[in-house]
């Protein structure tokens, strides 16, 4: 072998088998984006359970020639592509997360005060307003629906709907949803203060009645019957959610309930985060659309918060026992962050006004409402 051949071989190895000469500027930009989200998660503690795997997914997938999101020559998916294909494309992971969420959720505050369900419906206003805005911006109907659902502040619902309707927007939508959910304490209080007077913020609500174990056990069955009969398209999400809750409340399958809440939830969160992060490859992500999605997402959150509070104001016109409008903002789901925000804003107005349990009602109603909105969108395209 001559020296020329040796050099030719080295050059060939360098150019085709190592990443260095193939690294492009936009991939470096995406790595910076990954570091930004990792920073938010690690240093600022913003939704670290999701932003850490998502950030690392973005980081990993933007290395040149890395066999992660492609298919082999024989058509078998590479590592993260396999997570994505079987977890998200097959719509399994979001539903399993809903199973875990159901097992974690105590519907007591909602059962004790069913009126708060209406607040959960009103807080979906932003979903539909943003849908129109995105259509005006030139998004397709399916893309608009997947962007609109960000305001529902429900990560798994956003991922489920986006994977179904606009999978090419999955990364941006999921990231926007989780980022804004982490920023609920920054986004909501100014709107809450803007839409309420000090007197309204001081409204005290009657203590919730105790809810029996039997009522809690029956709730997932009643809710499943009503919701799935009316919106069959939401059956995968709502069915898993209520199944998880039934396991929790029936008390005879504590091991299963515990697994759904902890081990299973943690496992699928890892795969979900990595898969979502891995959809953000430079060539797909670096365009104007993700920027628009982030802007519309913020707008969506604002209008959803507005919608929830407005719904309480409207309800108060007809109710003799007034509801504190601060709990309206909790209708955007984001459990339990937005309920905590309502509580802390209430405490600022009146240090003896404990709104947390009252706010949990609309908060849980928001989960059901955003899943219902997702079901409505899915049904719309069937």
């Amino acid at each position: 072998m001559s020296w020329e051949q040796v050099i030719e071989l080295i050059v060939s190895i360098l150019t085709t088998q190592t990443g260095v000469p193939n690294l492009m500027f936009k991939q470096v930009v995406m790595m910076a984006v990954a570091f930004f989200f990792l920073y938010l998660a690690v240093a600022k503690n913003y939704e670290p359970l999701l932003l850490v795997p998502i950030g690392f997914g973005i980081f990993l997938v933007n290395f040149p020639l890395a066999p992660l999101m492609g298919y082999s020559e024989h058509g078998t998916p590479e590592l993260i592509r396999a997570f994505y294909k079987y977890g998200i494309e097959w719509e399994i992971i979001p539903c399993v997360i809903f199973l875990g969420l159901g097992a974690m959720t105590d519907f007591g505050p909602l059962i004790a005060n069913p009126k708060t369900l209406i607040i959960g419906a009103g807080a979906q206003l932003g979903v539909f307003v943003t849908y129109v805005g995105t259509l005006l911006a030139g998004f397709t109907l399916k893309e608009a629906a997947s962007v609109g659902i960000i305001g529902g502040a429900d990560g798994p619902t956003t991922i489920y709907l986006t994977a179904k309707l606009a999978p090419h927007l999955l990364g941006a939508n999921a990231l926007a949803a989780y980022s804004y959910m982490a920023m609920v304490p920054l986004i909501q209080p100014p709107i809450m203060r803007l839409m309420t007077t000090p007197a309204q913020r001081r409204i005290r609500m009657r203590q919730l009645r105790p809810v029996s174990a039997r009522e809690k056990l029956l709730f997932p069955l009643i809710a499943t019957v009503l919701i799935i009969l009316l919106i069959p398209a939401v059956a995968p999400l709502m069915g898993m959610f209520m199944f998880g809750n039934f396991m929790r409340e029936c008390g005879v399958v504590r091991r299963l309930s515990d697994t759904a809440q902890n081990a299973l939830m943690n496992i699928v969160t890892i795969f979900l985060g990595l898969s979502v992060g891995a959809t953000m490859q430079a060539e797909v992500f670096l365009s104007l659309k993700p920027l628009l999605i982030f802007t519309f997402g913020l707008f969506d959150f604002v209008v959803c918060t507005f919608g929830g509070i407005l719904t309480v104001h409207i309800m108060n016109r007809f109710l003799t026992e007034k509801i504190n409008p601060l709990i309206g903002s909790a209708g955007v789901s984001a459990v339990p962050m937005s309920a905590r925000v309502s509580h802390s804003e209430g405490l600022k107005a009146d240090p003896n006004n404990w709104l947390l349990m009252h706010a949990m009602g609309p908060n849980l109603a928001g989960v059901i409402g955003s899943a219902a909105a997702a079901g409505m969108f899915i049904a719309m395209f069937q």
Partner: protein
Amino acid sequence: MALRGLRIGFCGYLLILAAAIPAGLAGSARAMGIGGQDTEQPAPQISAAGQGLAAKLVPRGKSTSIQIVFGVQGGTLAGLGTTDFDQTSRQGVDPKNFRSGLFTLEVVDLAPGAAARLTMRSDFFTSGTRWYVFNPAGAPLWVNAEVEKRAADQRAWELALAVSDGGPLDSDGRRDGRLTVIGGPRDSFWGYALGTLFIRFFGIFIVLSLLMVGMFASGWIFNRLQRRQAPDPASEPPAAAPGPSPETAAAVAVALHLAAGGGRHRPAASGDGSSSWAAAGRMHLMTHRQRIFHRALGPDGKGGPCR
């Protein structure tokens, strides 16, 4: 800025800005052609269907496929294809309104100058569906063709269109016993998008309201059951009268002790034969009881939190 007696801080301005930005972005995105890529362009599969031809396709804004069955009376349907919007003029039309795309129909076996009746049937059509024809040689280029509509079986609508050879809807423009018709079903995109949106938003209210009614009903039933199962208050022994507060009880106890003992301190009995275990227990109990006497006084001298 003060609004309703409240001050909006920096975050408030930021959020108002965030609310205003999407409108501007929507306009600029349109100007920049963000939505220019037609990612949902239907790709029909053509197959024979009885005497006619059928196009199976996934229309814009749907996830499931639909079928349009084409037929002709007074000729033979020789071909059915699609036409890209890029090959037509968009003057006066928005491709979004043509959710199923555009079709090209070829009809043969006609007498020169004769007319044929084209029929299009689908359960995707509604009573508001219109049929637009594009004629590159015509003026205007796009014509809202007059179609007869009738409700066919299984929720399907049938549109019938009369086209004469060499007439304004015949793209080849010649009286040659052959028709070429380019056109497609048109529905109002915004009418559909906003109409369905409005219905679905209120649909969520209806669903959650029904759930609320169900929960009120179940709550009422459970309350009734619990009341029925609860023991009769008349059969219960009368509740004890509320006792004095711990502070009052302690004060009374001290007063009684002082009165009984005449203020003298009586040393604790020792050597009464009790075990050290019992003595330690008594000590523990008394220490616990007397915690109330060791409360720190508050700044106003009226007592403070228990330690």
